């Protein structure tokens, strides 16, 4: 999915029929459809969580869909994406099938990670989606390692590493930016600045804005409106090409906003941000609504088409839900599989003296 999107853009198209900002009608509809899919998927997850089909922590990406689509859509399938625990829609954007992602959230056998990872640990190595990491900032050195491997093998892939605004305060970013800079690795550090880390406004834990925090490493820094898919996509498309061509590491702030609570167990608003603030953002900065209105205005979308698209993605999500529901729980034996890739011929690896 992702890579076709990356390819089909008709650069040539111009004039009134060209569409918008150099994107043709088909592409624009695909953008809308993708973001609607992410939105409906997360709503389904929310629903499933409420009735206990999903357990543990579950972090929704609602409100940040354009960041997932804009930074991942332009990539090739063989490019790498790595992120934190807020990983569902980014997985979808990288082309991971909705069914296996939802099945993972349900902790089922057919989940992408066999039900062992759960919501925070979605992995699909085939698709270049390298997870799903739960320790804030821990994915950053991993991304540098993938960038290192790309350079080591002289490939032209890129690695996109997502991190939250609060993760900027982890030493891991500092060490990673420096290593990426000295070895000129093809890594794009994307700070998804949704203004809060859980319940803490970034402005309370940093003396300077996110963008400025990227200075001091010799890495170019950029900031983009992460709620505007067209701006984001265009920017990323060019940036990725630059990195592919040996441009070295990049640091990008994607300005966005989280419409839901930090995780399913957290309130949408509270002491740390007002209901009005959230409602206001939903009003003015919903990436889907923004694109929709643009398309209406430019008469590139009709109400019927919109409803059709929505029907389509709802069908996809319902199918995914059925897939997840139909998938059994992992076999009990799975408890001891995948702890090690190699069970050595000699000696004992498991010391719990349980029978298995």
């Amino acid at each position, binding site marked *: 999915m992702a890579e076709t999107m990356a390819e089909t853009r008709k650069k040539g198209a111009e004039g009134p029929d060209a569409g918008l900002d150099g994107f043709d009608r088909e592409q624009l509809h695909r953008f809308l459809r993708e973001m609607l899919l992410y939105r409906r998927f997360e709503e389904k997850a929310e629903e499933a969580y409420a009735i206990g089909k999903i*357990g*543990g922590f579950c972090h929704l990406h609602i409100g940040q869909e354009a960041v997932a689509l804009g930074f991942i859509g332009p990539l090739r399938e063989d490019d790498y994406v790595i992120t934190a625990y807020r990983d569902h829609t980014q997985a979808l954007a990288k082309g991971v099938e909705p069914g296996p992602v939802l099945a993972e959230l349900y*902790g089922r056998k057919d989940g992408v990670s066999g039900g062992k990872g759960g919501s925070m640990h979605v992995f699909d190595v085939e698709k270049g989606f390298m997870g799903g990491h739960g320790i804030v900032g821990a994915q950053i050195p991993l991304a540098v390692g993938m960038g290192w491997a790309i350079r080591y093998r002289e490939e032209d892939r890129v690695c996109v590493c997502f991190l939250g605004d609060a993760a900027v305060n982890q030493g891991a970013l500092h060490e990673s930016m420096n290593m990426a800079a000295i070895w000129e690795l093809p890594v794009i550090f994307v700070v998804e600045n949704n203004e809060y880390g859980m*319940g803490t406004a970034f402005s309370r834990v940093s003396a300077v804005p996110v963008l400025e925090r990227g200075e001091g490493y010799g890495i170019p820094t950029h900031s983009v409106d992460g709620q505007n898919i067209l701006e984001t996509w265009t920017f990323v498309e060019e940036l990725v090409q630059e990195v592919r061509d040996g441009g070295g590491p990049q640091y990008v702030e994607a300005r966005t906003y989280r419409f839901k609570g930090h995780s399913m167990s957290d309130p949408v608003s509270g*002491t740390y941000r007002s209901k009005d603030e959230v409602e206001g953002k939903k009003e003015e900065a919903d990436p889907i609504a923004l694109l929709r209105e643009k398309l209406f205005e430019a008469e590139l979308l009709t109400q019927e088409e919109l409803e059709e698209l929505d029907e389509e993605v709802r069908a996809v999500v319902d199918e995914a839900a059925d897939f997840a529901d139909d998938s059994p729980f992992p076999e009990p034996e799975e*408890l001891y599989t995948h702890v090690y890739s190699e069970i050595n011929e000699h000696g004992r690896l498991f*010391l*719990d003296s349980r029978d298995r």
Partner: protein
Amino acid sequence: MPVITYREALNQALAEEMERDDTVFLMGEEVAEYDGAYKVSKGLLERFGDRRVVDSPISELGFAGLGVGAAMVGLRPVIEFMTFNFAFLALDQVINSAAKMHYMSGGQLSLPMVFRGPSGAALQLSAQHSQAAETWYVHAPGVKLVTPGTPADAKGLLKAAIRDEDPVAFMEGELLYNVKGEVPDPEEGDFVIPLGVADVKRKGADVSIITHGKMVHVALQAAGKLEKEDVDVEVLDLRSLRPLDVDAILETVRKTNRVVYLEEGWPYAGIGAQIVSLIQEEAFDYLDAPVIRVTQADVPMPYAKNLEQAAKPDAARVIQACNRVLYRD
């Protein structure tokens, strides 16, 4: 006695110690405006202000080190880790700074501070968020380690930990915060439980389950079921792992001659390994059967509900173990 939750007990302990001593302050992620990720510090910001209840950036190594530095010059920091799973990032400051500075400075510096937060598994939080951290904090000398399993112990021991002159790792549990229990009324005076005193949570004669932390409840559950089979189980809660109440351990061994060690964490070099090793060194002749350990399966914690249940130690496994040391199987 008033019945309150483990969470409220910790909150009381923090409030009382901060009230008593201005050098005590609480720092950690979300502890102030958010009242704590698990609401342990509810209301403390309002009561003590942002000088003493401080939201930190997500910089575990940094703010753990900040706490050590503040303790070096006489403050009494209480550093909250949202969970100990995230504290691997801070371990260098615990092991190389906090645990060693008193010694390296020839006794010039004392580090009266507490590192606290939940440790171990909750429900379906998966591999990175479900680790019992005891071993990593107890192996190196210089840090003390406390693991309360009940509201009363949580309050009395946290107050003692805050007053202790040394760094104390204080491990709680997400699944414990809502547990209710009797805790002496603050009006009746200062309630402090000294470190290093184990507690017999249930008297028994046939077999001893020695445990610590949240597993105390699993042990009592198992004991209850075994009682129906006329097996009289003693449950010894170590409460504090360093200092370790060796006398209480030896006493219950001499009494029942049969021991099961129950812990939430992994077996390899776990707390149980130490206790078993200590028992056979110091009470070898009192053992009528080898001590059996009940631990988490020796695998990372899986997310899937059924696998997670299978991975965790439970009453059934404890009962099985008791039967084995009693040669009842």
